[in-house]
């Protein structure tokens, strides 16, 4: 069976046989970098097209259907357009920070790729504090947004950045707490361990209602953290035209835009890993034959399938709900999500200690 694990292993052993260890390491680094960049580019193209198609079908229209078969190359054409656009920097802007901001958001998005297990045994860095690493790195993205908003010297951008600051830091808490409930159940911070703990069933099934609650909280919190509607107050185009990236154009805009979509992918990938067992195939109790068939589906397909399902849910939110107001947004977090997730964490703890899960 073709799997990423064997491919990476064979590449690794071939490199180490052919070259000296230093060169092999360098070459591996290059391969990883190229793979990451390729993943970024592909994901950007696919997710933008997916978003537009999902939006279109929900809005009883066709969506992009001119460029390529069924409009498949629409986002490629858009990318080419964005490359051809002039990237302006406003006169009054803090030029250094203004140009730095897209790099920051891109670096954050890229760093978050490291601990994600894309397939069985296919992970860039299986860090033993994976969950902590993710919470830590994802907090940095707010700095990029604040930087972009403040440096633009534009009032809309400033307001958007400020909103986004208050919003992201608030939702960080309940996202963290809901992730913790899985950590409690799995007893490890390492993502591969968490996936391994779900080999006999995903946490969302094994964990009863408390895990479902923490999953709902997680989805709401990450929707808010990635500035997606209904929490897109940082952009809020009917209020602040385009929020923190009002002044960005051309390639710099494209980078911010891309990073946003990559962030969605990453949080959905983490959600899939924590709650849906990552690359683990679906196994149902003692149905041996069913479980065997499921095993034949490659693990990477499982992972991407789950992730894209979560992405679809987040898109579904966007094209259904109106936007919240800033005070309601924070009220939702501080009045509902945070107390609930605290209590929920205790419930999960009791469940974990008593062993009340399958």
């Amino acid at each position, binding site marked *: 069976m073709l799997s990423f694990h064997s491919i990476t292993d064979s590449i690794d052993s071939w490199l180490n046989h052919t070259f000296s260890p230093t060169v092999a390491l360098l070459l591996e680094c290059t391969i990883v970098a190229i793979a990451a960049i390729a993943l970024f580019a592909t994901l950007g193209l696919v997710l933008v097209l997916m978003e537009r198609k999902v939006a279109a079908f*929900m*809005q009883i229209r066709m969506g992009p259907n001119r460029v390529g078969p069924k409009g498949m190359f629409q986002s490629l054409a858009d990318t080419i357009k964005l490359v051809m656009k002039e990237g302006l920097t406003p006169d009054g802007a803090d030029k250094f920070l203004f140009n730095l901001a897209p790099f920051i958001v891109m670096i954050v998005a890229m760093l978050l790729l490291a601990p994600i297990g894309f397939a069985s045994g296919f992970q860039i860095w299986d860090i033993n504090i994976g969950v902590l690493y993710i919470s830590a790195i994802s907090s940095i993205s707010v700095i990029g947004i604040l930087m972009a908003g403040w440096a633009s010297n534009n009032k809309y951008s400033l*307001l958007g950045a400020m*909103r986004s600051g208050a919003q992201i830091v608030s939702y960080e808490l309940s996202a963290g707490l809901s992730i913790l409930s899985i950590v409690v159940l799995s007893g490890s911070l390492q993502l591969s361990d968490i996936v391994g703990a779900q080999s006999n069933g995903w946490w969302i099934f094994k964990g009863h209602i408390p895990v479902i609650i923490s999953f709902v909280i997680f989805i709401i919190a990450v929707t808010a953290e990635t500035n997606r509607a209904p929490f897109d107050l940082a952009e809020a185009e009917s*209020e602040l035209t385009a929020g923190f990236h009002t002044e960005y154009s051309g390639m710099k805009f494209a980078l911010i835009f891309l990073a946003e979509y990559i962030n969605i992918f990453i949080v959905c990938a983490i959600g899939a890993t924590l709650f849906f067992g990552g690359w683990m195939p679906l196994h149902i109790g003692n149905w041996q034959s069913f479980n065997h068939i499921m095993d034949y589906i490659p693990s990477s397909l499982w992972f991407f399938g789950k992730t894209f399902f979560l992405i679809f849910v987040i898109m579904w939110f966007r094209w*259904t*709900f*109106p*936007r919240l*107001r800033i005070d309601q947004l924070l009220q939702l977090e501080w009045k509902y999500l945070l107390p609930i997730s605290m209590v929920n964490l205790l419930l999960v703890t009791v469940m974990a200690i008593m062993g009340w899960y399958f």
Partner: protein
Amino acid sequence: MIEEIGTTAEGDLVINIGPQHPATHGVLHLVVTLNGETIKKIEPHLGYIHRSIEKMCESLSYRQFIYVTSRMDYLSSHINNHACAMCVEKGLQIEVPPRAQVIRVLMDELTRIASHELWWGAMAMDLGAFTPFFHAFRERETINDIMEETCGARLTMNYMVPGGVMADLHPNFQKRVKDFIALYKSKISEYDELVTGNIIFQGRMKDVGFLSKEDAISYGCTGPIARGSGVSCDIRKLYPYEVYGQVEFDEVLETRCDSFGRYLIRLREMQQSIRIIEQLIDNIPGGDFQAKTKAVLKLPKGEFYARAETARGELGVYIISEGGTTPYRIKFRSPGFSNLSALDHMARGGKIGDLVATMGTLDLVIPDIDR
């Protein structure tokens, strides 16, 4: 905090919202003074689309000037034309044939539904929900198609002439309108599912943009805005024109006084319009669709004032005639202009998000304000 509202102090942010802004639905320019997110003052700047229609009309004949008024409130262009035609008829003392009266009322109500549909979609879009906009256009397109078939145009129909309507109804008209009513009734529950019942939407709309009954009268608000504050001001009920006196419908009133009240008013008004259409569609009397008029119309010396209930409120047409073929002075009392004056009062103390919600319920059409 509250006592600071209305003053400008250090640390306040002055932001221009409009003329090129997604929430203003046109070229309205608001200068907003903010403290953090809280609005302290709003100053509307108008005139970006001012064409001085009143001056233009002074050089147009009584047949010609009607078409210009379609360009004021283009979403209820038919009702604008109606008010103008009624004013001319008042001056000439023309009796409009019953068939024409019914046709006019049918078209008015279709226009009102189309206008409210667009508003419903745009309102949801202001609050960040894009999908309802497209769903609203599905119904609106059907009305536009009906209009196109009978009147010859989709938006600026110019179907009215002094004394009646320009052409008879299209043979398909009755059937298509009935189809539309069936379509509308099958989709009405979706409006509640998608928008009205949504908790986020209600949270955004409730207790936002408060306008008390006294303020609504003092600011000269009409239409759904005043009715949302409990002011009875439906011209169709108070001063019935054409066949409005003979059909059964309710004047929708709400006493919530907030954005959500105004939102509900418009939703229910659409249903009242459907009710009017249902009563009339099978009872269109025969006869002429136009009264006999002279080729060149001359209004007698005097002043004439006619009003009609557009989708936005009371439209008044005030003609001063010196006996010639053109009006000496014409004044359009447009609903949007008065409604806009209340915006500052309604939005003060709220957030930027509230401003958008309030402005959405005002249903501003900028050419109507600028004229």
